[in-house]
């Protein structure tokens, strides 16, 4: 049995080149103002960036902007220095962006489809030649990811809804990884899974970063952001309200996350 609770990252070498950059990303709110208010940030290769904040700070909306979910959003984004001009999800996936949504049931999985079908849903092009889907190659690839992510399944042909929350989350992660992303966006990756699976998800994140993947993850759990991140960004009221290196005091991070109503009223 693994000891839960101890997620502190071992010291790691400094991160590599910039893999993703967002400049002045905005998302207008229906009632005026901005849900995402001129957010700029960068993520480097092999770096885990934690995006901490309270509910409604605009973090999920920001990730959705990166994944082309909001046609009304503005700003510029770059992958490996080249501007991200694709307007649809498929195009952004092709550019190396992968999103692991917060709500597994609603956004992450097609519950009635098989585990295999969910794993490969974003990467069917890998097994396709002239419209023909090579089912054998697909099954082999799915089996490989089941093994790699240690997803506990009786058969990859069972519906994904029969899995536990933690194993479902691993399927979502597997689906994202199969697209060979350069940057992984994770929205509350530990929500709704048991403590053992949580530790496994965190270990997976660190392994992926060690392999050179840039990870930007959103969390509302202070311990989590402090333990996992190489760099901590804090959002409040749609804005980046603080940027801290790993090892920052919890109190400092919390202070930055607290929306400053005084300033807003003055503005």
């Amino acid at each position: 049995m693994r000891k839960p609770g101890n997620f502190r990252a071992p010291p790691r070498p400094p991160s590599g080149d910039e893999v993703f950059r967002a400049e002045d990303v905005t998302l207008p709110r229906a009632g005026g103002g901005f849900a995402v208010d001129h957010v700029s940030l960068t993520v480097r290769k092999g770096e885990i960036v934690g995006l901490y904040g309270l509910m409604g700070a605009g973090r999920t909306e920001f990730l959705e902007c990166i994944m082309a979910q909001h046609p009304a959003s503005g700003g510029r984004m770059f992958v490996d220095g080249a501007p991200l001009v694709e307007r649809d999800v498929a195009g952004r996936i092709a550019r190396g962006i992968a999103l692991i949504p917060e709500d597994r049931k609603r956004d992450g999985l097609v519950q009635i489809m098989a585990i295999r079908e969910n794993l490969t849903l974003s990467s069917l092009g890998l097994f396709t030649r002239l419209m023909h889907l090579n089912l054998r190659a697909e099954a082999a690839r799915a089996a490989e990811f089941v093994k790699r992510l240690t997803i506990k399944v009786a058969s990859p042909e069972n519906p994904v809804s029969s899995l536990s929350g933690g194993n479902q989350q691993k399927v979502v992660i597997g689906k994202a990884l199969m697209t060979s992303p350069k940057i992984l966006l994770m929205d509350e990756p530990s929500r709704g899974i048991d403590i053992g699976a949580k530790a496994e998800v965190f270990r997976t994140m660190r392994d992926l970063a060690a392999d050179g993947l840039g990870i930007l993850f959103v969390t509302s759990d202070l311990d989590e952001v402090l333990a996992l991140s190489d760099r901590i960004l804090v959002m409040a009221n749609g804005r980046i309200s603080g940027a801290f290196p790993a090892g920052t005091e919890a109190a400092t991070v919390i202070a930055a996350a607290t929306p400053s109503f005084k300033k807003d009223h003055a503005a």
Partner: protein
Amino acid sequence: MISSQQNWLLLVLRLRTFVALILVLAYFSVMAPNFLSTANAVIVSKHVALNALLAIGMTFVIITGGIDLSVGSIVGLCAMVAGWLVLNGVDLGVGYTVWFNTVEIVGITLAVGIGVGLINGLLITRLNVAPFIATLGTLYIARGAALLSSDGRTFPNLSGTDEMGTASFPFIGSGTLLSLPVMIWLLVVVALGAHYISRRTPLGRHIYAVGGNERGAALSGVKVTSVKLFVYAFLGFCAGLVGIIIASQLQAAHPATGETFELNAIAAAVLGGTSMSGGRGRIFGTIIGAFVIGILSDGLIMMGVSSFWQTVIKGVVIVLAVVIDQAQSRLQARVALAQEAATSR
């Protein structure tokens, strides 16, 4: 634990449409003499073919979580278009009329069917109209257009002429190839094509994903709009084909052609195990469903049962099919859960 009894039950439930087919076949071969003759088999197949063609397209639409009520009207409109082209050609309005040969007429008519299907798809995807309402609208529009095209009259004598290259027009609906009716061949080709799309192409997988969880599919990079446009256009294609076959078979086109066809197509799909809530269904299941309905009505006719009773029986069979389908999904989920629970321990 999963008992072997449960596994057996699940197998029977999975194959229920097939079991139903064998049951009705067995019943009528005993009760109605001559039912199991080759001649009768061909007749029944011809009756089934039209509904099966529509039901195949309908299956795709229902798997995406949609519905199309306009197919019957598209059939009628396409029959009228084909009839018009055979009889009148296209008057360019300067005293000059363009005539088309059979192949061109088939192409234009299919394009009209696909076009109406695309309009359905655009209404649903671009203008966000609920499928039920959008296709209810096109049901009336297409039927109205069919009636307007001839002022409500029938286009008679579509036997075609050699000089226009339309003499082969009746062949589509009444000709035979290798001693099988042409329309049966058309059904075979469309069925195999649709089955291939559903099982062996990314498009097919995307159709199931959209029906299973549209938002989740979109976030996985599935182009939901294109998928929906395809399924409605494909159903429009099937409807166009059926319209051509009917006009050719009767050598006449009547604007009321195809009324209530949409309901028979939905019935066949549902009987074949297609889930109205989307995400589940098989092409071959649908075809078997169409055969069960067809054999049921033809068999009852041969036994001399009143057609009013036939309608009642058809309804009972459809409701039964859905009830069994529900039971199957519940059992299947339970068995899968038990299996996975056993491994994670």
